């Protein structure tokens, strides 16, 4: 049954904080306190999440893990975090990209929306051109 699960709570698991003052930031599970709580740290220098206790209900597990000791201190954590290229891996995931796109869309001004409209028009133009060509090709067959 464990094979059905891919994301585990474990030391070194990178999580996305869902709720609270550090919402939207990623952090690493350094240790497990009890059934509901983990000790988590950004590291603070990189992601802004300090070392503190956080409930599992307030986080989402990601696919990324790094190799660290239990209850590791900031210096070693920063080293493992940068060597594991966690931020880069995270930014590449479609999860992070969707979040970033949502933020971008929410912060669009009128000029951005105008540019988006033009881009959509261009895109549909290209798609329709290709579609017309395919229909023509199927008709001449």
């Amino acid at each position, binding site marked *: 049954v464990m094979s059905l*699960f891919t994301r585990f709570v474990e030391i070194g698991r990178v999580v996305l904080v869902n*709720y609270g003052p550090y919402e939207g930031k990623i952090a690493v599970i350094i240790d*497990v*306190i009890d059934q509901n709580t983990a000790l988590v740290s950004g590291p603070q220098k990189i992601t802004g999440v300090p070392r503190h206790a956080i409930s599992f209900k307030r986080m989402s597990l990601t696919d990324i893990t790094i190799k660290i000791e239990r209850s590791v201190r900031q210096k070693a954590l920063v080293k493992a975090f940068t060597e594991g290229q966690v931020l880069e891996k995270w930014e590449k995931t479609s999860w992070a990209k969707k979040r970033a796109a949502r933020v971008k869309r929410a912060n669009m001004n009128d000029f951005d929306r105008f540019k988006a409209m033009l881009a959509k028009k261009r895109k549909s133009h290209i798609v329709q051109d290709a579609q017309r060509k395919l229909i023509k090709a199927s008709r001449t067959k």
Partner: protein
Amino acid sequence: MPYHEYQVIGRRKPTETDKNPKIFRMRIFATNEVVAKSRFWYFINKTQKIKKTAGEILSVNEIYDKKPQNIKNFGISLRYHSRSNQVNIYKEYRDLTRTGAVTKLLTDMGGRHRTTYRRMQIMEVKAVTPKETRRASTRQFHDSKIKFPLPHRVLRAPRKRYDSLFQAKRPITHFR
């Protein structure tokens, strides 16, 4: 409710015959200083022949954990009044701070035994080494390679305004 740990120091009021009465110090878990002082007199009354009117409090200080970023296993001995008699028990909690463990204890005792703060006397809160822990529920976390999934995940809206009573799609409760 966040509990604080206070150090309350008091003594009997000095008199002509007794210029330097014995000083007593207690570590009390309470929500505020007023309650801490009140509990101090409660305990002093029980153990010494000093009443609040005959005594004085010399100082009330809040005590903090030396290392609030380290996980500790707290073994708590307490005495509580159940509906029929008094019971001594020992409970264990894993937490970062003493006050965190005591907060857990109080909510746990309220849930399991229906006792409240005033019906309990916390005798000792001690950070024990993993070897000295007595409960399997605490010991199961003493694993440097601890690993478990979160089977049934109910995600919470990050802010109250995003919370909705109705949803378009059924939630996914796994792999998150």
